[in-house]
């Protein structure tokens, strides 16, 4: 459980972080909370040549609301998202989702940017960003969430690109997150989040495909006036869960249906 040797530098600004990434090359990794990266390094499944520590980087630590959007800095910890009055006002589902991430230790260290950049299909925020058409703001550009999550642990980020914020549209309607796991602090075996917006229901799936998945079929059914149980029958459309040590793909698909109905029925 001892990582391979690596260089370590800190970045005080986004420009510095980008500079370090360019200098160290492809093998360098950004580290903020390290809640996914450090375990991988300790198992030597990841052996970055250098870590660029952005945990004290300026300009990525704010939560702001403007123009119908809630901007969450990449460096904001889950615990701060969970407790933020601004988040609770503008996008209460995000506060609820943050509350379900890991355990207290993870929530105190892990960050919004870390989850998004890691691109794990089980990363709770990825589904939310995708279903709400959020924007991923980086040192280079603004990515639409719909094109950002490419494949298993693969995003549209370039090697020297730093996520600085995620801009979610404000949504205060009925919402719910159903996260099914066996231990409270685990990743979701399967998760479903729903949000009622002015444009209709939005549905997102956690850990039910190579990336986060948007529940387009369910959204469409709801738009056509389907009741929760009926809409939930379209939950598995577009899902590609895999067998793993936690559960079979068939079981996860079944959960998607059950949890979709429960989320829609419990949305408040």
């Amino acid at each position: 459980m001892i990582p391979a040797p690596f260089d370590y530098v800190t970045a005080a600004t986004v420009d510095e972080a980008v500079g370090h990434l360019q200098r160290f090359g492809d093998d360098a990794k950004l580290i903020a909370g390290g809640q996914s990266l450090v375990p991988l390094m300790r198992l030597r499944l990841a052996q970055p040549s250098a870590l660029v520590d952005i945990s004290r980087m300026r300009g990525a630590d704010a939560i702001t609301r403007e123009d119908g959007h809630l901007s969450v800095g990449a460096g904001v910890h889950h615990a701060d998202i969970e407790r933020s009055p601004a988040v609770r006002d503008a996008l209460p589902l995000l506060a609820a989702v943050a509350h379900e991430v890991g355990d207290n230790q993870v929530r105190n260290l892990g960050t919004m940017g870390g989850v998004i950049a890691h691109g794990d299909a089980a990363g709770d925020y990825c589904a939310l960003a995708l279903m709400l058409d959020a924007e991923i703001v980086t040192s280079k550009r603004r990515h639409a969430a719909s094109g950002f999550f490419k494949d298993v642990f693969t995003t549209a980020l370039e090697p020297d690109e730093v996520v600085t914020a995620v801009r979610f549209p404000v949504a205060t309607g009925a919402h719910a997150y159903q996260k099914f796991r066996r231990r409270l602090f685990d990743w979701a075996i399967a998760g479903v989040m729903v949000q009622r917006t002015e444009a209709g229901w939005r549905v997102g799936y956690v850990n039910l495909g190579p990336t986060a998945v948007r529940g387009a079929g369910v959204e469409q059914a709801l738009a056509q006036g389907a009741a929760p149980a009926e809409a939930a029958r379209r939950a598995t459309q577009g899902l590609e869960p895999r067998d793993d040590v936690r559960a079979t793909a068939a079981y996860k698909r079944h959960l998607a249906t059950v949890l979709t109905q429960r989320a829609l029925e419990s949305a408040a």
Partner: protein
Amino acid sequence: MAVTSMIGARIQRREDPRLVTGHGTYIDDITRPHMVHMAVVRSPYAHAAIRSIDVSRARSAPGVVAALTAADFRTVLSGAVPVTNSFVADKKQVPDQFFIAEGEVAYQGEPVAVVVAGDRYAAADAAQLVHVDYEPLPAVMDLEKAMAPGAALVKRDRPDNIGWDTVFAGGDIDAAFAEAEVTVKERITQQRLFPVPMEGRGCIAEFDEYDNHLTIWTSTQVPHFIRLFVGGGMGLAESQVRVISHDVGGGFGSKLRPYPEEYLACGASKLLSRPVKWIEERSENLVATTHGRGQIFDVEVAAKRDGTLLGLRFTQILDIGAYHGVFSAFQAVACLIAGGCYGWKAVNGRSIGVFTNRTSTDPYRGAGRPEGTHLCERAVDLMARELGMDPVEIRRKNFVHDFPHPNNFGLVYDSGDYDKTLNRALEIADYQGLRRRQQEMRAQGRYLGIGLCTYVEICGLGPSGPTAAAAGVALVESSTVRVHPTGSVTVNVGTHAHGQGHDTTFAQIVADGLGVPYESVDIRHGDTADTPFGYGTYGSRSLAVGGISILKSCQKVVEKARRLAAHVFEAAEEDIVHERGSYHVKGSPDNAKTIGELAFAAHGAGLPEGMEHGLEAVTYFDPPNFVWPFGAHICVVEVDQHTGAVEVQRYIAVDDCGNVINPMIVDGQIHGGIAQGLSQALFEEVRYDDESGQLLTGTFLDYLVPTIAEMPHFETDRTVTPSPTNELGVKGIGEAGTIAASAAVINAVVDALSPFGVRHVEMPARPDRILELIHNGGGDGHNPGAGREVTA
């Protein structure tokens, strides 16, 4: 410092301020001058031939002192990992396990080389540079396939994969089944578990080549075993070896044996003339430290239609792993106690130990008794179900009532009152109320389950006669009690605490046994240089064997002090009154001397003719019998029929461990024990790939150790039925919770699912497994079809 009655006092553990503030001394807290660090290179394969090992790159890496393989260790180590009889003296084969692989690896995680470097980081980096050329061989993973003639072999030099095949026959089983009006059969599996102590293993070996002495600091439950066996592997006598084990962060049975790494660190220290430290990483702990359970039981129960139990017949197929554990066959004790707290005409268990290409199994909290209890309590529930009886009634009808009770194998239950614990548990649970609620909820499509486990446990290993016959060693226990000249007391014991709180409970016994202030008593364990030979701590033995040894040493000291008091008071010995550590002549209580004052006199001049100086005693206690705690646990669950999730709503435990030294510590043991048993029932499961033999649950991401968030509130109570086996009337309590809990939980889950035709649920009761059972009605054709339609 007042002298008060301490036995039975609910006092806080005196070791806790040190331990909970991070001031304990664990292996990794210890540093020795010129110490170097060892990393172990392990097999990534379950089974492979080793064509060659190239350590040249590792040897030349920065900071590296040495890279060593079997050929190097053969020059300083001899012998093999010891294997004890443990209930099966006539094993079919006992293959030698040298401490590091030679030519072939037989489980993922087997040591193949070590790298020693100036620091841990350099050692870990260089370990990656050792190149081993493996030729993968078929992995033997399936127990039943492994038993078949002509099966692939776990190691190429073995005749077959059978370690033992023994029948434990308690009575005429055929006659019992001939009388049967009803029989039921089931296959009941005990999945493999990781013991998961909070502190992994670790050791420091320091060989002194000038006077040929070896000191080993190690995280163990058995310092004296380590001295005997590891010293032996180094060709040293006990007098040349000192084993020190300060604080130990849990063991659960996984630290009650010498391990290859302890031998390897000692060998490396001798080869390099440096102290060598090895600290087990968590990912190593999961492959290199022994596992628990790993058994399949095929069970058949015979009964009369009125619920009278007649016969219990079963086969235990036990996954030994690649090599025998030191106590590999100990889990066969499941056969001897599978009858539980019921009267049977006959109990017959065949135990077959089968080698596979997995890590060795060895005792894990309860060791054979959770398996036997789970088997029995499931079997009794299955029979109740078949007969349409309430699970409470079938238990009551068959409880043993007369004590002492020889069971079918001649083991003598020393005492018990099984109705008492059951009645109390039913009262706390409001059993009838729960049954009514279950009916109401079923009408709403919700599935409540109520599960019982009434258990009896054999512990307090052990009386030398039966223990030596079964285990191959006597398992008596030792103590010395020494009163210093000014009255403080040092007690040295052969047991070894690793979370049990012995510093507190043993001091409570001594405070009362001598009549001295609790604060004046110091308990010392874990250093072979200042403790008498002892067998260590496991099997809930430390109080019932070690604690009684301490009491007896105290009694010897009290008697010597009485003789001295008679001399000091110039009175006859029989006129001396001893009350709470104070001596006086009958009728003159105002002129008294404390045991401390007499200790001073015992170290001075003018002792009686023939009396030696000093005030101390040694005792090796050999108990006349085991002790037999018992209890009744009730678990209440609700199963979500749409997801298969199990929610534990209530857990009630009424245990009887005889007299209690410290209720707070007993409560703690019960809580922790239940947590581990509940965890086996619902969460934990070591999984390997069936084909490749690769471990699939190699991190805590995939191996589900639960947290407090997954635990229900435990509603505990006690009854007190003192053991007649020892003077304190005590029994053991370290394993009771684990022994009872898995059966209580699974019986509750099965009860909840009974409307779906489910008869049995394997552990862990994973949601996906349960959903499948709901859909298939247990897959046994019994499904009446109720609730088969699953909708959200």
